[in-house]
């Protein structure tokens, strides 16, 4: 088997992975980045909206600072986040944005002069700030803070990042998938990787291994995530039995995925003044959220939407009920210029003209706040030499709900931090490798491949469909004890069935059925971890909403779930660590939630 040695192995070539690679390469280390697809096709490109950083250049962001950003982030997280991390993040975000500008990102810039906002308010951009990086409004923030490039922010960031990676001599091995980490229970030594061009296995040995594989959205049936976001990185970490995943029950739903297709239309639509309408074309959000209206944080808007649909105000369609997004009043010029991708999505995928027609939307799985638990430096718990970054990590910036635009910022800021940590750690640590460790990891993977080829009556796509349906139905926006118990039981049954996966095709070469079959057991285990964590958490916090425990419970649950899956255990092992609170004590989020869903909610702690 081919063996490749390197200083740093980054699994995942999205923004986080490449930013780690760049920082490590800039410190002089050799870096190899693995990616399922060419790096410029990563899911990071799909982030249309913006990147939060308190630059305060706009009229509507006057008085913004890291402190305000910190407050928005912590409140958005429903106090579930680590406040040290949040502080580090808000301090670094402006630097990250400026560095991306320096590297070539064409951020939109401030144009001086008066202009009218979609809601009729007049503002005057100051001449003093002209030409500095502009920002737009985003849900859940006090100030306009989301820096953007028209509607291709993620695209421009990814392209610029990959340019810099190329310049610094970072090697990207694309079409490669990590199947298992090489570890001895103490330290991580790299990964066993399947080449998706030929189907062969390769060994990568590295002094530092980084998991930056993005989210697990595809385990849900309806997800805005790209089809490659199957949580593979989280699954290989869970598979070690010693690395804990943090807060896996914290899954965010995006209010505006289009129906059908679940393609995300950016928060920018609502930020720029779009309305949500029900079947009577009534703008219902002001009824629930008189102050923030459509711009309340994502979990709140999603929940209001599902609640409103459950009340019978949803629009019926062959794909189930949905609501309408209305951007017609923003005008042709604005839509064609600033929301061009949105207009394209409507026309090309739905056959709808957003200038004159309403866009069918519904809440759709969008983001995983949970992931491989790391400390503030980005080092993974459980194994030395293992790091994680971006959505795959639980750095715990987002707590139980992520603010729009904080994900792009997190990928880059955390990438910087992790790269710096790796440079520091490699310089100060010894590295000795035993062949036995590599052999046992290799054998384990080869065993799985042999298993697929020899026995098995279960068909991978049937099991996958079942898993997605269970999650969508029972571990969605509204959760309750009964359904979660059912979900865990049914998923455990699937986990058992997944041991008998077989192949219908020859399995030779870069066979997609083999890839799916290798991923599925890990995906099911992630699903169980989510459902089980959600079942145990008997409170509602951020995007985790329990109908049977509708109130936030700071007395008992101001803590983070850590899930490991010890070898031969039937269920994940859950433990808890307290959330670090340094600056902002738990309080009201200010989204008008106290009146809460149908007013049935109990008193808040």
């Amino acid at each position, binding site marked *: 088997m081919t063996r490749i040695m390197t200083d740093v192995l980054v699994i995942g070539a999205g923004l986080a992975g490449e930013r780690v690679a760049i920082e490590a390469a800039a410190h002089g280390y050799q870096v190899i980045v693995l990616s399922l*697809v*060419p790096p*410029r*096709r*990563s*899911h990071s*490109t*799909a982030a249309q909206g913006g990147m939060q950083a308190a*630059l305060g250049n706009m009229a509507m962001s006057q008085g913004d600072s890291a402190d305000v950003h910190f407050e928005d982030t912590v409140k958005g997280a429903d106090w579930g986040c680590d406040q040290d991390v949040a502080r580090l993040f808000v301090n670094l975000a402006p630097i990250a*944005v*400026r*560095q991306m*500008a*320096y*590297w*070539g990102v*064409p951020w*939109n*810039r401030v144009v001086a002069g008066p202009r009218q906002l979609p809601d009729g308010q007049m503002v005057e951009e100051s001449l003093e700030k*002209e*030409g*500095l*990086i502009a920002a737009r409004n985003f849900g859940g923030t006090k100030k306009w803070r989301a820096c953007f*490039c*028209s509607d*291709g922010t*993620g*695209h*421009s960031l990814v*392209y610029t990042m990959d*340019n810099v990676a*190329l*310049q610094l001599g970072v090697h990207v091995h*694309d*079409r490669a998938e990590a199947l298992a980490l090489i570890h001895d229970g103490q330290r991580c030594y790299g990964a066993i990787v399947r080449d998706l061009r*030929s189907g062969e296995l390769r060994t990568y040995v590295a002094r530092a291994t980084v998991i930056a594989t993005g989210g697990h959205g595809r385990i849900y049936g309806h997800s805005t995530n*790209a*089809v490659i976001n199957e949580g593979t990185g989280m699954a290989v970490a869970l598979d070690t039995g010693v690395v804990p995943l943090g807060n896996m029950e914290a899954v965010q739903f995006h209010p505006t995925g289009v129906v*059908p*297709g679940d*393609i*995300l239309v950016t928060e920018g639509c609502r930020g720029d003044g779009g309305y949500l309408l029900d079947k009577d074309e009534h703008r219902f959000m002001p009824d629930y959220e008189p102050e923030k209206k459509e711009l309340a944080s994502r979990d709140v808007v999603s929940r209001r939407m599902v609640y409103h649909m459950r009340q019978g105000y949803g629009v019926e369609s062959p794909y189930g009920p949905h609501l309408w997004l209305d951007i017609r009043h923003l005008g042709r010029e604005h839509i064609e210029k600033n929301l061009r*991708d949105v207009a394209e*999505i409507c026309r*090309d*995928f739905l*056959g709808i003209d957003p200038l004159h027609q309403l866009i069918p939307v519904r809440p759709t799985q969008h983001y995983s706040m949970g992931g491989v638990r790391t400390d503030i430096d980005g080092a993974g718990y459980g194994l030395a030499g293992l790091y994680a970054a971006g959505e795959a990590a639980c750095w715990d910036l987002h707590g139980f709900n992520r603010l729009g635009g904080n994900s792009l910022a997190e990928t880059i800021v955390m990438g910087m931090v992790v790269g710096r940590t790796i440079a520091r750690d490699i310089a100060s640590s010894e590295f000795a490798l035993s062949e036995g460790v590599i052999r046992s990891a290799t054998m384990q993977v080869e065993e799985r491949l042999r298993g697929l080829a020899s026995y098995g009556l279960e*068909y*991978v*796509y049937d099991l996958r469909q079942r898993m997605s349906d269970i999650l969508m139905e029972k571990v969605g926006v509204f959760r309750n004890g009964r359904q979660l118990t059912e979900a865990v039981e049914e998923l455990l049954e699937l986990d058992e069935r997944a041991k008998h996966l077989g*192949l*219908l*095709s*020859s399995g*030779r*070469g*870069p*066979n*997609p*059925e083999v890839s799916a079959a290798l991923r599925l057991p890990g995906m099911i285990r992630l699903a169980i971890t989510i459902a089980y964590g959600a079942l145990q958490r008997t409170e509602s916090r951020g995007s985790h909403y329990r109908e049977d425990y509708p109130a936030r419970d700071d007395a008992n649950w101001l803590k983070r779930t850590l899930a490991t899956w010890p070898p031969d255990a039937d269920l994940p092992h859950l433990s808890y660590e307290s959330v670090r609170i340094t600056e902002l004590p738990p309080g009201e989020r200010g989204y008008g939630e106290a009146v809460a869903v149908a007013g049935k909610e109990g008193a808040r702690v």
Partner: protein
Amino acid sequence: MSRRTLTFSIFRYNPYDPEFEPRMQEYVLEETPRMTLFTALTDIREKLDPSLQFDFVCRSAVCGSCALLVNGRPRLACRTRTDEIPRRITLHPLPFFRLIGDLSVDTGSWFAQMAGRVQSWVHTTRPFDPASEEGRMSNEQALAIYELDRCIECGCCLAACATAHMRDDFLGAAGLLRIARFLIDPRDQRTDGDFFEVVGTDEGVFGCVGLLACHDYCPKNLPLMTQLAYLRRKLALASLRPPLRWILRQIARRVA
């Protein structure tokens, strides 16, 4: 809407399976409302043939993974609704790029070498100062750069370009557009001469014979014709400068 039955004729080849001869294989599928080739191909893989290889990532036309020849025309499969095309659908992998298997081609490697050849990054001597505010730029300029930064590297321009097929070393519309993007970027300190070195050759902009298939098949509707013409004018004029300067110097010497 009346339901149609779609017949897909799909190119099949698995280079790693010795028993697998290249061939066209037919699949029959019921059309559903608003079906795209993404839904259709996924259905075929999950219900009819799990070995079928194809690439999708974002399924919303921003990643550029899924370009195919649909009835002979390069298109993004995810953005092709089946109700836009006839009942019989022929799918081939994108030509020009190395075939991985079935409909999957290796666009990544080609674009990576292209980026290396055109040195696709901002060249500057100015250091980055984390403590100071960002360099200013007019919004128009930023939008103009973004406009040229919109390429998603799907490879349709190269698949459509007869010149690229005939000359292996041709940079293609994607490579030339990348240069144009840095040419107008004020942060990039490369001079016209520097750019000339990279693309002022027969492998670069002068290799283009102006077939404009790139322009016509670009799924992002990038202004490729305008940009190629701009580069051609700019570099051709730049090429006249040194000889003219030399002639003027000779004249000046004679006169003096």
